[in-house]
């Protein structure tokens, strides 16, 4: 187990094995995105209550799911970075924070655009919107802390601690905000017996959710790989690669 983590986490070996993963994940992302968007925007039927404007759900809901998922990934790589001092995991924290903040901002913006025709206002102080906004603040904190230190490894470890404290706090924040106020439509997908959504809408939504996941991984690999190169620029293996590719 330990050997496995150290081997796959060493910057040089990571750079090598992640190359193929990145390429395939990009291909899968493009395929899934194409299929999901086509199904969602053209094939899925019009909603009888919300008309055409509901179609923003195919971006909004996957982005909102990803905002939580990325935070989880960030906290997990934070634990890995703190416990085993894996350099790649330290880099992943910072990249996760940037990507996660973007997903959160995307979910908030699409939600605001969706809210205007549905609720008649861009913003309501409702539980889910508020906890998403707080999540964005938490991401800002991690990004700010990660980049505040001159030594990037110190910054990564500090950000890891913050991410772990955050992951304990997120459920508390979520429930506190939920009790505080709620107006948002209840979750329509996470009912196992019978989703309150028709299959013709549900399938493109799930496809889009998978597309967002693979997109996240492809983006994470690409950003982490270039950051690995930047941090290891004085080592001999990076120089070798640079000479080969130039």
């Amino acid at each position, binding site marked *: 187990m330990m050997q496995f983590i150290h081997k796959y986490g060493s910057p040089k070996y990571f750079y090598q094995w992640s190359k193929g993963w990145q390429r395939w994940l990009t291909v899968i992302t493009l395929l899934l995105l194409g299929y999901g968007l086509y199904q969602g925007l053209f094939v899925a039927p019009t909603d009888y209550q919300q008309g055409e404007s509901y179609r923003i759900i195919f971006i909004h809901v996957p982005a909102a799911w990803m905002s939580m998922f990325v935070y989880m990934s960030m906290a997990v790589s934070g634990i890995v970075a703190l416990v085993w001092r894996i350099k790649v995991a330290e880099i992943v924290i910072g990249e996760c924070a940037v990507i996660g903040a973007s997903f959160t901002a995307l979910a908030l913006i699409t939600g605001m655009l969706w809210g205007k025709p549905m609720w008649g206002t861009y913003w309501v102080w409702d539980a889910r919107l508020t906890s998403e906004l*707080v999540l964005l603040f938490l991401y800002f904190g991690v990004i700010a*802390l990660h980049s505040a230190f001159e030594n990037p490894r*110190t910054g990564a470890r*500090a950000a890891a601690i*913050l991410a772990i404290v955050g992951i304990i*706090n997120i459920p508390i*924040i979520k429930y506190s905000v939920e009790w505080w106020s709620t107006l948002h439509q209840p979750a329509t997908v996470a009912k196992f017996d019978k989703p309150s959504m028709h299959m013709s809408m549900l399938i493109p939504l799930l496809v889009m959710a998978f597309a967002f996941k693979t997109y996240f991984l492809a983006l994470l690999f690409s950003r982490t790989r270039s950051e690995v190169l930047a941090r290891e620029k004085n080592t001999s293996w990076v120089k070798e690669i640079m000479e080969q590719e130039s």
Partner: protein
Amino acid sequence: MQLFYSILYRDLMLAIRRRRELANPLVFFVIVVSLFPLGVSPDQDLLSKMAPGVIWVTALLATLMSMDAMFRSDYDDGSLEQLLLLPGPKILLIGAKITAHWLSIGLPLIVLAPIMSLLLYFPTHAMGSLIITLLISTPILSLLGSVGIALTLSLRSGGILSSLLILPFYIPVLIFSTMAINASVNSLPVSGYYALLGAFLIVSALLIPFAVVAALKVSYN
């Protein structure tokens, strides 16, 4: 436990000797609370409705302002490093410093808040709930704040950054406290909110010192 008491005694002595510095966040609290009637309107109904939120948000900010005092001067003169090298559990050391911080900022706030709430026409029959929520929650503010300050200790502009990190974590405390006060104003049952705040206090008191020790280790690299 000897370690705990001696650190607590030391920090409280230091706080008393630097009482002018200690008073700054409290003066800040008083001034900011009195800005609200000037900025919004002196309307009695409006102010009494806003009072719990105003008192609580201002208390959060005042606590944040005072947070820097917990580790900063000890870090600058090197005594924190020596304290961390002491034998014995570091959790006790951190716990003592947090307790001292709460005694020097949280307690004075609890005394000041009811007085300031009168200026906002806060209904006196709910005064008990204001004091109780402050009593349970200000220790949580000191605990959570200590993580932020410990993480940013080695940075020159650590103060503002640690406020950014910590304020989102203060949200549950703010929500439960103001909900409890509002329930009490409307003569609704409040014990559930106290129980939640108490649970939050216990969990933070158990977990946060560990996070602070880890954060200090990172700061000393």
